[in-house]
């Protein structure tokens, strides 16, 4: 785990909320945190280099951009797991894929440009693996927390 000091934590926590949209946004945030702009910029660069942060930028609502998503589960026989994972991951529409401890042991997210593509890709995956796919699109969202406290 990366070593974060109190200022790093304050930066990570503050910048999980929006960066101001104004001429000198970093100067504004630095002032809130009681450091100067140059220090904020160099610490941000270091946190990115050390991969504490994956990215500093926009989080889009991809559905508003016209994209479509679904969570898909499969129950893959143990002796075929690697082979099926390889086939599934070869689809560029598979955004991430987790192995989980359950009969339904493969869980992946499809991200496509249109809603129609979700059904098409699922059908292709079922055909190329010979296994059923269980499509579980989001029906309602009760919560999406975008913030995770550093050094709570």
């Amino acid at each position, binding site marked *: 785990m990366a070593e974060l000091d109190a200022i790093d934590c304050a930066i990570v926590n503050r910048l999980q909320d929006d960066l101001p949209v104004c001429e000198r946004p970093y100067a504004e945030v630095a002032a809130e945190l009681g450091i100067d702009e140059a220090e904020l910029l160099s610490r941000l660069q270091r946190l990115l280099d050390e991969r504490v*942060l994956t990215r500093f930028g*926009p989080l889009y609502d991809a559905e508003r951009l016209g994209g479509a998503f679904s969570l898909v589960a499969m129950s893959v026989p143990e002796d075929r797991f690697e082979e099926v994972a390889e086939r599934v991951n070869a689809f560029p529409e598979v955004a991430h894929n987790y192995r989980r401890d359950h009969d339904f042991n493969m869980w992946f997210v499809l991200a496509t440009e249109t809603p129609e593509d979700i059904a098409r890709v699922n059908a292709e995956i079922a055909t190329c693996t010979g296994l059923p796919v*269980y499509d*579980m699109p989001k029906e309602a969202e009760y919560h999406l927390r975008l913030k995770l406290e550093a050094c709570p």
Partner: protein
Amino acid sequence: MKVTRKAPRWPVPAVLDGDDEALITAIQGGLPLVPEPYAELGRRIGLSEDEVIARLRRLQETGVIKRLGVVVRHHELGYRANAMTVWDIPDDQVDTLGACMGRFEFVTLCYRRPRRLPDWPYNLFTMIHGRDRDEVQANIALLVRECGLEHIAHEVLFSRRRFKQRGALYHAPEPAHGGT
């Protein structure tokens, strides 16, 4: 508590012009780490700083940009365990119980999804984080107690291995982890 109902299921895409598209493409890799990042973005795509600022504000107001900030790695902040915990909740209680669970700090996602009977009876999905598996289990026990879920069937699916995670790109959109 904001409950977002999806009816129709697919929201109408926002209306974006060519300059919006150029701006979205320019910032998808990250904001420039320079004192005047919006002026710098403008230089790259041929817009004034004022124009960049006005367009970004509009993209935020219309919800195309949910947040302009940092994306953390859970693991690097010490949250090493996560479990997708799934619940079989009577249809007429999903909204109430989903809202209750969504209030807890360690619940990062709380979504309703369709059952796939007979194989899959669960209709509410929560992502529960913790420093280790014991903490995740303790958090789940707290949810059960606080939201009155003693009679609700649930299963805890710990992740074992991540096979694939690709970066977020506008032209091949990807949600925040599990945010689908």
